[in-house]
């Protein structure tokens, strides 16, 4: 029961703040609601007993990326942005994409409800001492089973970083 209530609590916050983030006119308010949505998602991870994902979500997305977002927003001239029309020429495309996504989600709901044993995962509350050590499990799967994809992803990130440095460097 506790798990269910917590899930709906965090999911509700995430959905509501995501909606607010899109509709707010003020960029800083949008950023605050995006932070709230990300934190609520982290809460769902924690409620699913994925501690490591929870803290990585907070450190990377909230503590890293969002700080940079807010930093950039502060440097932008907000008064100009406030008076511009923000939802220009995307109305119909956006509606179409949103309806398609909603349809897909609906189909998934429908089919998963029909199939026995394959519906929504049923959460069983387990005490903390019965759980496997979370960060160790993640480390084993990253560095043993999926070492090659992990290395490829790191190289990709490194390439992106070097590219950014080269582009940002002053041409003297």
């Amino acid at each position: 029961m506790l798990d269910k209530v917590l899930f709906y609590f965090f999911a509700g916050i995430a959905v509501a703040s995501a909606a607010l983030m899109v509709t707010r006119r003020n960029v800083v308010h949008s950023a605050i609601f995006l932070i709230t949505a990300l934190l609520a998602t982290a809460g769902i991870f924690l409620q699913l007993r994925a501690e490591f994902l929870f803290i990585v979500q907070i450190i990377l997305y909230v503590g890293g990326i969002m700080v940079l977002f807010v930093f950039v927003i502060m440097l932008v001239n907000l008064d100009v942005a406030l008076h511009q029309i923000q939802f220009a020429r995307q109305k119909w495309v956006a509606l179409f994409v949103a309806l398609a996504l909603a349809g897909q989600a609906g189909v998934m709901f429908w089919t998963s409800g029909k199939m026995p044993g394959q519906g929504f995962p049923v959460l069983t509350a387990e005490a903390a001492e019965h759980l496997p050590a979370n960060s160790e499990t993640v480390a084993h799967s990253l560095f043993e089973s999926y070492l090659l994809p992990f290395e490829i992803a790191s190289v990709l990130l490194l390439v992106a970083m070097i590219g950014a440095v080269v582009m940002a460097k002053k041409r003297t």
Partner: protein
Amino acid sequence: MNAVFQATIEFLKLYWAPLLCGVAVVAILPLIAGYIVLVERKIMADMQARLGPMRVGPHGLLQPIADAVKLLIKEDIIPDNADKLVFWLAPVLSVGAALLSLAGLAIGPAFQIAQDINIGILFVVGISALGIFGIVLGGWASNSHYSLMGALRSSAQLVSYETAAGMALVSALLFTGTLNIKSIVEAQSKEGIWFVMLAPVAFFTYLVASIAETNRAPFDLPEAESELVAGYMTEFSGFRWSLYFLAEYTNMIVVASVATTLFLGGWLRPFAKVSWLNFLDFAPPVLMIAIAAYCVLRVPKQPTRVQQLFMLAVAGLCFVVALVLAAPVVLPVIKPLLREAVAPFYAGIHGGFWFIFKVSAYIYLFMWLRFTLPRYRFDQLMRLGWHFLIPLSIINVLLVGVASIAGAYFHLQGWGLLLVTTPAAIFALVAAFLILAIEKEHDTRKDQTAASDFYAG
């Protein structure tokens, strides 16, 4: 609604003890922060050869309470053009993040609010980093140029130094193989050596980065009063302002506790495994009795009756603490049979004492540096972070990693590990000097060409 009610009951049944501890921490921490401020003022006064606060209570001992009352009843001013909601939210965010990160810390083996979480140290570091939003949003919401500049500086500083701090933590964590706070301290107890000996360069990096992260002098650029009035908290007054201060001092406690846990052996006594140094167990009660005796000695010097009584009360408090500390070490000496029964109390009480002692020492180091070093310029601060600390910490992680693999290969343990980690530290030092030399050469070359560049720096 029924479901929510049931869930609440279930939640309270499971978590009533941590909740109570949390409430206690939230209630006590402002008092502790206030007294840290008093100690800081006293140390500053001592270093500047004056007395510091002396009027309120004996030796100014009641000054924090007077300050708190003053701040609470001050007028709460919100600027006209401020974003009211964000202005309200920002200080709360700062304090909330700082207090929440305290939950993961273990003050001695017995006192920990969030018991044995697997991600331990990551939780503390990650949550306390969220406090930056309070600063940035507060600076933005006040709608003032000084505040915004302070907020921008602060976020740039925190992002730059978090990398160095994280790398320093990684180098120490290489020896533990776990993120759990209790296991980290137990690993140091098993090795019989603190990680500050194994990774001294990482400790240095963490020290510098943690000062920068808590926005304290010599890195207190976000609130540099000579250029920015008070930085991000220029427009804040009264209780909101004191919330920012509470957050800053809580953050100091958090970084000091992380450093203590990872590098300084957590709650372990110095040389916990050396049996002929066991007499060190008697040091805590003797120290407290000495403080109590000093207070009693000072009683006749107090000018008024109330102050004399207060001084006696402080002496009594110290004496009670001394008794509590003495009980678990003196009882086994009188009755050896009690040794087993007393052991958990000994671990809890003395563990707590040593942890708090080390945290205080670390915070004292912060204050010492604050009153000794002049403030950095902002570009110097950024250069120190990006050009010196981050490369050094990355090199150090590599070297410490090689050292720990070598240690495992040669089956080294405890003090034997020094055989491989000392060369690593020396290599890291050489690297540090190389980085400095490259920087210096870069600088001199820049100076030669910068003669006509008016916008340089």
